[in-house]
């Protein structure tokens, strides 16, 4: 394992300190317990708080700022944060209108946020994201994983909260977006958790992992490495299939997010985007909004995910509204 670090113990703290210094106009970080808030705390709105294991940067701390999150709680690498972090963050940013947690649907995140919610002295609600269609949602699983679609939920719910909407409305919008969003990821290499010091899985030069999770969890299938168009075609098919399974309209405007998992060059992401956009268009969807880059990563994994969110006027408007965070910024 070759990484820029001093000792694994302090890696997260040092990195978060750097993050907070680089963006000291926008955010502040607290330690013991660890959480990130906007520098300029918002008044009189629902407080939107997210969090999860670290290693997915810029998620979530990179999305703290005007128009998006009020606070983020970074856990250890790939390990959900602990309830005391959420409680302290909520204490810091609650502005009288309740707290909405946005939580990626993993057992660990769910339970830690749940315990925080149980102890929270404020009105609160939780939106769980579960956009990963690689994991088939059936009675014998704990449900699908939340992956890159989480960014869309955080952006749009953040925007709605900014308008003074109440907790129930924020939760409703978040759940609607989650319902209209499907993602699937593919890995060409494993990631390496710094504290583990070695790759999470073995994969040869002729294989890929289809449906990989953002923690390097194995996906649907180990498949043969092949040309990008063939890989993307399978990914788009999975998303379209999932849209059907969710009984979403078979056409309409979409937001297309091609997300790098950490080590994939932008040149390849745009190549993936090119094919994905064409195939989705052929299937009747029109790509109305796009985002291409590293938004929800898996440390240093070479790989990418494709996310499609079926827009409506509401979602489009909240996606388009001004945002100013370390990792997502427009019209501000």
């Amino acid at each position, binding site marked *: 394992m070759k990484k820029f670090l001093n000792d694994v113990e302090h890696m997260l703290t040092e990195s978060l300190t750097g993050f907070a210094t680089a963006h000291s106009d926008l955010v502040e970080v607290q330690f013991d317990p660890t959480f990130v808030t906007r520098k300029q705390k918002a008044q009189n709105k629902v407080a939107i708080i997210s969090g999860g294991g670290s290693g997915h940067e810029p998620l979530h701390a990179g999305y703290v700022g005007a128009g998006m999150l009020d606070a983020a709680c970074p856990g250890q690498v790939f390990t959900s944060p602990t309830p005391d972090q959420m409680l302290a963050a909520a204490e810091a940013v609650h502005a009288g209108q309740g707290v909405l947690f946005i939580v990626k649907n993993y057992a660990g995140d769910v339970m830690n946020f749940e315990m925080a919610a149980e102890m929270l002295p404020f009105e609160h609600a939780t939106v769980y994201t579960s956009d990963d269609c690689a994991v088939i949602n059936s009675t014998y699983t*704990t449900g699908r994983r939340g992956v890159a679609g989480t960014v869309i939920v955080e952006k749009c719910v953040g925007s709605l909260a900014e308008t003074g909407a109440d907790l129930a409305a924020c939760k409703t919008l978040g759940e609607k977006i989650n319902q209209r969003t499907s993602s699937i990821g593919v890995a060409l290499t494993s990631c390496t958790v710094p504290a583990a010091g070695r790759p999470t899985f073995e994969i040869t030069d002729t294989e890929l992992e289809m449906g990989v999770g953002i923690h390097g969890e194995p996906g649907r299938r180990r498949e043969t490495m092949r040309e990008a168009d063939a890989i993307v075609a399978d990914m788009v098919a999975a998303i379209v299939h999932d849209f059907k399974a969710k009984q979403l309209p078979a056409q309409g405007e979409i937001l297309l997010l091609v997300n790098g998992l950490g080590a994939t060059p932008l040149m390849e992401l745009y190549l993936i985007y090119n094919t994905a956009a064409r195939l989705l268009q052929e299937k009747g969807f029109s790509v109305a909004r796009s985002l291409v880059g590293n938004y929800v990563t898996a440390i240093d994994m070479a790989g990418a995910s494709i996310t499609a969110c079926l827009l409506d006027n509401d979602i489009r408007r909240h996606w388009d509204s001004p945002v100013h965070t370390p990792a997502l910024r427009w019209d501000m």
Partner: protein
Amino acid sequence: MNSATINHAAAAIRSAILAHEADIECLDREIGDGDHYINIKRGCEAIASIEAELAPLSATDALNKIGMKLLSTIGGASGPLFASFFMGMSKSLKASATMNTLVLAQAFEAGVQAIMQRGKAQAGEKTMLDVLIPVASTFKQLADQGEPTSVITTRLKIVTGEGLESTRNMLATKGRASGLGERAIGHLDAGAKSCQVMIEAVCDLVSSHSQ
């Protein structure tokens, strides 16, 4: 049981976990996300760091404090579950006036039930519960029968091993491995492994004392 015994047990657990780094770590890499060993280790070290604070406390308070400490230290899926275990155990002990093996077995069972509630899981879902549930029921049964400590520890070590081994051919229906379907088959569950290591360590400690 008092806070001194608890600190002893915690130390025994800690060395056992450290000694099993390789096995535990690789299991969570195979069908999880590779952090289970680190999580557990972080928990063990946090408890070691509050040894002095635990010392003056009653067993009940010490267990509760351990639960709270784990809750704010481990994170992940195992954090709230182990925290719930100790807080559940503490609550059960508090309700009881006396302290004996049966009371302890009941507290253990209460701890396991707290895990089941928190995780909304049952036996057979390829989790730590596949070790904990059979251990809890065997423990209570043997304590009920008034078996001597040495019999109990010997038996529990066997049940623990069997529980762990039973996860090998299960489909996972809870936790991170639940997305894997058939691919999880053939792998032991990491949380089950760490529970087996911990329970075995405590059994060995107890039987060495009772000899």
